[in-house]
Structure formats: C-alpha cells, structure tokens
C-alpha cells in the first residue's frame, strides 16, 4: 500500500491532467480521476470540451449521459490501458483509473502551492488570489497552521477565471478538518456566507444530482455542511485529506468479494472518516429495504464511499444505493 494525498493534481506524460482520488493506493500507481483528457486519440461530444495549456481536451464529466460515458470509458481503456487498474484485492475489480508511477510528468502539491502563493506580496495578487489569501487567513484563525492547508484545482494550476472559478482548499489531517468545522460552526466573517436553499437547489439541478438523490433530502443534508460556502461571493469548497497514519484502511490488507446491489438503512455509529475520499460511515442496525440478492445475515459495520457522498455527515438514518462487497473479516464494504 502507498499513501498519496487525495486532491493533488498530476499531469502525465501522455498529456492527461488527473486529480488524485484516494489517500491509499496500490503499488502499481496512483488512483486518480482523469480531469482533462487530450482529444487527439479519443474524444466525445457528450463530454464538455476545454482549451487548456494550448490543447483541446475533454473534461471527464462522470455525470454525463451514462450510455455515452460507458462508451467513452471503454474506448479510454483501449487507448490508455495503462491508466485503468484491475484490482487484485477485489474478486471483480471496480473501475479504477490510475496513473502508473512512470507516467507521472508533474505533481502539483496543494500544500506547496499554497506556500508559494502566501509568499507573494499582497500587491502582486489579482482579485481571485486576493480572495484565496484572505480566506486562508481567516481559516488560520482556527488555530491550524499554514502547513495544514493547501489549494487545488484551477487555483493551483493557474487557469482560474476571476469571479467564476471556485476556491478549493484542502486540509491535511482528519482531526484538523474537524477542528476547522467546529471553528466555522462557531465563527463568522463579514465576507463569509453559506449556500442558501436556492443555491443548493441550483447545484442539485445543474450537476444532475437528481439521478441518485431526493431533492429535499439532498438539500437538507447539504445545507448543514460547513464545507461549501462563499467568501467575497466566490464559492469555496473544503476537502479533508488523510495523513498517512490516519488511513482507515490500507490498500492490500483486505480482500473484497462482490455480493450484489442493495438498498438499506442503518444508524450511524461514527462519521469520523466520512470527510475523506474514500470516506466511511460506521453503522449499526442495518436493515435491507430492497434486496436483490441473498446474503448472510450479519450487520454492515462500515459503508465505504468513493465519490461525491464522502461528506454526508451526521445522518442518523442513512439510505444508500450501494454495491456490497464481502470483506475477508465479514465487513460489508460498498464501493462506488
């Protein structure tokens, strides 16, 4: 197993721009989500196009039409076989994208990027960067250190659009993230506000979240989070990263067997690990609502999420559509 911080950016020798998608990785490479893929060898009109670093690229939007996405990913696997990872710890490997180590061209470290940004005299910053610096300075009032933060995505890569791009901040360490959440719960700033109902509704519609969520539940869940809001009217998003010693699972120490597709509810015992990707809710009293498969009658002990649900926290009755995988120690771990 290998630790590598989630949300770092990697450019590859084949011109792909990837976002690290886990904090734990197999030896073969870094688990990523390709963000921008050159259109020279493979392209799809069902995915948005972008012009980045002098090249026409597709933005891999996992929320696009499922059929088209499937076609694209199948072709991707043929064109870039090295970037698709067949996991040997799963009896049937879920889809994993990886960047093999030898394909890495450049790693953009969020921590290093923020350190560089904060070293720039204030007068040399543009409006967007001024906001980022102002926001980080506010977050530093929580008692966390500059070293505990990072910037990522377009702010880090330098192709942000003023008044359009988000401020994406990462926090190194789960304890530190929770400490920051507590700070944000209790503190105010004149330039800080949280997304209102209408803004979450807009997000819900725009990002096709209706595919899996009931609107009212989704908005209710999202509304109480302190991971997304506005600073000086620019959207910010906070992401937690696991430190190496904090990993709630180590790649390769467990084996997973796929059982089937199911829907259930349960009581959350702990949401401590729900803030990272992959995140995890420890649950008890799980009950199937819609069972398509027969499984042994032992309770789920954890729900493991790769993806957008990673910060769904404080949910007493948690309902999900999941893949269930039987682990060797009889935990049921669903993977997205």
């Amino acid at each position, binding site marked *: 197993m290998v630790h590598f911080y989630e949300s770092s950016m990697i450019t590859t020798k084949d011109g792909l721009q990837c976002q690290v998608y886990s904090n734990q990785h197999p030896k073969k490479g870094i688990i990523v989500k390709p963000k921008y893929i050159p259109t020279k060898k493979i392209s799809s009109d069902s995915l948005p*196009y*972008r012009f980045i*670093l*002098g090249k*026409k690229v597709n933005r891999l939007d996992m929320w696009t039409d499922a059929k088209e996405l499937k076609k694209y990913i199948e072709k991707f696997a043929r064109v870039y076989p090295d970037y698709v990872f067949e996991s040997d710890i799963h009896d049937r490997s879920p889809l994993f994208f990886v960047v093999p180590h030898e394909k890495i061209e450049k790693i953009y470290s969020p921590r290093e990027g923020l350190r*560089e940004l904060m070293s*720039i*005299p204030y007068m*040399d910053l543009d409006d967007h960067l001024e906001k980022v610096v102002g926001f980080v300075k506010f977050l530093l009032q929580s008692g966390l250190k500059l070293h505990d933060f990072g910037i990522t995505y377009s702010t880090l890569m*330098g192709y942000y659009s003023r008044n359009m791009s988000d401020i994406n901040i990462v926090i190194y360490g789960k304890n530190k993230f929770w400490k920051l959440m507590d700070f944000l719960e209790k503190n105010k700033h004149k330039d800080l506000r949280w997304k209102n109902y209408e803004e979450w509704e807009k997000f819900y519609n725009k990002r096709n979240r209706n595919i899996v969520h009931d609107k009212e539940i989704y908005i209710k869940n999202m509304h109480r989070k302190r991971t997304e809001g506005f600073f000086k009217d620019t959207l910010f998003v906070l992401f937690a990263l696991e430190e190496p010693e904090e990993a709630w699972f180590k790649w390769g120490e467990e084996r997973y067997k796929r059982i089937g597709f199911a829907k259930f509810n349960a009581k959350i015992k702990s949401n401590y690990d729900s803030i990272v990707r992959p995140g995890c809710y420890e649950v008890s009293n799980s009950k199937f609502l819609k069972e398509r498969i027969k499984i042994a009658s032992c309770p789920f002990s954890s729900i493991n999420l790769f993806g957008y649900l990673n910060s769904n926290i404080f949910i007493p009755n948690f309902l999900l559509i999941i893949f269930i995988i039987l682990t060797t120690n009889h935990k049921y771990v669903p993977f997205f």
Partner: protein
Amino acid sequence: MAHFYESTLIDTKDGFQCKSYSNEHPKGFIIVKPKYLPRKALKARGLKYRFLFGKCLIRFNLFAKKEKLISIVEEFKKNYPEYIYEDKNKENWYFVVPKNKIKEIHDPKKGLQELLKVPKKDLDDYLKKVVELIEFLCKCGIKTIDLGITHSTLLGNYTPGKSDIDLIIYGKDNGWKILNYLKDAGHPDLHWKTEEEWAEYYQTHKTSESSHFTEEEYIKHMKRKKYEGMFRGNVFTLFTVENPEETWFKWEDETVKRVGLATINGIVTEDYNSHVRPGFYEITGAKILDKHGKNWELDNSIKIEKIVTYSIPFIQQAFKDEKISACGLLELVTSKKDQKKYYRLVVGYFDAYLNERREKEFIKAEI
C-alpha cells in the same frame, strides 16, 4: 544561423518561461526575453511576483527601475551564465535559451488550431472572443493556419476582461494584408482608440518611449497603427513574425562594430520590414544630428542605411517617403560574404535598458 519564430513561449529545464525575441538566432541558441523566473532564481528586489502554475514566479520586467534592473541583470548573469550569449562579432550580449535547456516549446500555430477545434458552446467568453476575432481577421483572405495565439491566451492563464488577446501572424505579406485590411474593415465589436483615448493613455502611461513625444505627436503616431486594438472590450495585439525564407538578415553573415550613441534623421525608402522584431526602416539621406557628447567619426564613404528596432512601440512608426528621426546605438555592419559595409542605428537592444540609452532612444516620423 537558425530560424525560430519570434513571440513563441519556451519553458526551460531551470523553470524559466521565456519569449523568443527575434526570428533569427545564433546557432545552438534562441534569443529570448525571460518572462517568468522561479522565486529562488534571484535575490535582487524590484520585480513583481506572479502566482502561475502552482509556483511563485518573478515577472522579469525590463522596465523595472534602472538601478534595480542593473543589479537584477548582474545577478542573473552571475547565476545563469549559460542564458547569456556574448557575441564578439556583434560586440553585444543577448538573453538566450541554449537548445539543450529547452524543456517545452508552446507552439502558437498548433495552439490556435487546437482552440478552433473546441465547439464554441464549450468556450468561455474570452476564448469565444479570440475565435471570433480570428474569424474576422480571416475575412481579409488569409487562412487560420497563418495565425497563432501566444502568451496567456495560449497557456490558459488569461484573466478575462484584463488579459490581452495576443495573436501571431505568420509571414510578412500576411502581416501587411491584415494590417491594411484593418485600416478600413468595419466590425461592430472592433474599436480603435480615439484621439481622446490616446491622449488619456499618453497622460496615464508615461514611459521612456513616450517621453520623446508631445501629446499631439504621440496621438498622430499611435492612431495610424493597427497592431493594437479592442475587440468587444478586450485589447488585442498582433505580432507579425517572419517565415524562415523571409528573414532580412542571417545571424552569422555579418559582423557588427559599435560606433556610439547618435541621433539621426533621414527619409524612409522602405518600410516593408517595420512590422517584425527586429524590424527596420530603410533610409536615405541620413544625417547625424547629435553625437551625445562623444567625438567619434564616421567613414563618409559608408552610408547609414537602416534604423532597426527591437522595441515594439517603435514598429510601424514611419512609412515610406516620410522623414524619420531616431536615437539609438549606431553600428557599422560588414557583410562576411562581400565585405560590403553600411551603418545602422539600433533601438531596443537588451543593454539599452541598463544604460543612458534607455531614456534617450526613440524613433519618430515627422508627420
């Protein structure tokens, strides 16, 4: 000698971002102007910082305060001697990128072709403007393959509403075709600065170049240039670059000897090469107006034939048959092939930013 297109961005293995500064180069090197350097490259103060591609970079600016620039360049030369090319045959030095230091070349032509493949619906407002400006320029009969994009437009670190749209025109004929087309072509989104706007610009952007002009002279010169305009509220700049077969000199075909700082005048007999970097005006009847306190002498049998500029504000400054005056470094040029000699006056060499020529150099048409 080697051809390499001017205004092309080059990343070096030492983390520099440079812009090629000529179309003709010494063998094994590319003449450049450093644009961004890593923060650790220089200790000297006086330059601004930028956050680009995850790094704090120093914006290398030849217009920084002179005394500061002197120590900055001194430190640069000491820390990175391989990026300085001393040419004894030209009695001058240049910022260069040695070929073995090139990490990546950002090709403006390929970049534009890539941009044009992106459906308009997926472009932001800034890039839409770029594409629509290209479509408009192509109405004069040139092809998109003769155009390119550079600087932040190419690299994607542009700031909509603030960053210029920087376009390259490949080929001198194509350059004139577009510049002449723009004299009359109308487009609802195209705007040239009015006399009032130029007057305001003159008052608010005092530079060493503009200091040689009265407000009225400045407006007259700038108003007739068509390399910088506004397209839907965004400044655009057109840089013409020479194709390999078009370069007006070959690096190793001539030797150059410095004469001294001079102010001269003459009549422009040819302006065809005045829209490239370096560009020149062919002149006749040149007279020395000022030797700036020195008593060097010229060989009267040799004529002053050219006024050369590396400085963009002085391109397209004078047209054929106009009277021109200029101040710069007077040089004696000798052809290696047939030993033919001529004098030329050069404005905008790198060293000029560090000495008295910085405040004195200009090119002006009597209009």
